């Protein structure tokens, strides 16, 4: 592989978006356009001849290296591509409120967290760690959320009883009346 093709390949690999001929020109200034195109052609041919697992594809904004489509499916099915992800801080806090106050409405969660939790609730629902468990009485009959058995499984506990009681958590939780009231609002 000639040096320009090698450089282009690295750039395609590392870039978060397709690269245009202009982008590529910045990598190899002072080179005529034909040379850039020849390098692209070299890459394309090399990937094909040597049966690589990816190919050079021309998309709207430029060129991009993409996993060969016929292999992508096998890889997806093997579930190795997506590493388990941690919950965001916002999601954790929302989950914390739900775990300790279920069943609880969205308005109640927002009251405690002081921010909108719409998006967070949706992603927790998608992940099946919370579920809609009913509707409250009263205005608009808001949906009530609670935790699922999947959550217990993730946490490695058998029941919600195993969660430490609020009073056992260190900080300012020593006041039983307030803790109880926290459960009421």
């Amino acid at each position: 592989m000639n040096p320009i093709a090698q450089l282009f390949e690295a750039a395609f690999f590392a870039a978060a978006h397709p690269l245009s001929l202009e982008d590529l020109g910045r990598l190899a200034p002072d080179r005529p356009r034909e040379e850039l195109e020849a390098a692209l052609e070299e890459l394309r041919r090399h990937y094909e001849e040597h049966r690589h697992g990816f190919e050079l594809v021309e998309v709207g904004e430029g060129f991009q290296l993409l996993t060969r489509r016929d292999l992508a499916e096998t890889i997806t099915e093997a579930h190795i591509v997506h590493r388990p992800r941690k919950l965001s801080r916002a999601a954790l806090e929302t989950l914390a409120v739900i775990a300790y106050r279920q069943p609880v409405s969205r308005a109640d969660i927002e009251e405690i967290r002081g921010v909108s939790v719409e998006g967070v609730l949706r992603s927790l629902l998608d992940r099946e760690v919370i579920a809609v468990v009913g509707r409250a009485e009263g205005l608009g009959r808001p949906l009530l959320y609670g935790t699922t058995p999947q959550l217990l499984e993730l946490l490695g506990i058998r029941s919600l009883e195993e969660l430490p009681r609020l009073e056992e958590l260190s900080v300012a939780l020593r006041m039983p009346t307030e803790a109880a009231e926290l459960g009421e609002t």
Partner: protein
Amino acid sequence: MTAPPTNSADQTPFVVRLDAFSGPLDLLLHLIREQEVDIYDIPIAAIADQFLEAIDALGLNEAADYLEMAAHLLRIKIQLLLPRPFDEEGWEDPRAELVRRLLEYEQVREVADWLAQQSSQHAGRFPRGWFADPPELPPRPITLSLAELLVAVEELVESLPEPVLHRVVPRPLDVEGATRRIEALLEERERLTLLDAIGEATSVADVLSVLIAVLELARLGRIRLAQRKTFGSVTIRREPDRTAV
């Protein structure tokens, strides 16, 4: 060493930048090295004075960490002034613990240097930068530990305003103010969204005031409201004949 050279021409020898030190131990090591004294035999009295001068010159005298160290140095200085018992056997050098901490901290610094070098070396090799959105896959699996959840609970509780209770603060609605604000905004712009109108309102009372003002303006025919789709954003426009009103 990250500390810039000191200015020897100046009477205050501590012309150093605040951010040049990552903590009191760092500053202390800097002083010790500058004086070229043996770390196992630190002239505490002199070093303590210099430390105090330095944190004063650096404007660090409000940083609790530095003050704590200053107090600690003074305590050692006093202990060294106390008469020692006749038999030196029962005597323990009050500097010993400090020396241990300084050496330990030097090790930490050396490892930190290594980490910096290693990571910057490795930062020159890029992983693939582009990833397709997973096609119709179930959402990425998550990891979650009990500890993580409990930290969130604690932080949440800590962040709650005191007392932890739901407190209703009587706060008057300011519909007039909100009306003026919306009208002023519409002077400048053809249309706004409801979110623009709410602006930086943070309390429920503020948001309610805006909502009531918007509805009132619409009822009076001074603005027109539009919502293209359910739950979509609400657009507020001037009514064309607004000037006639």
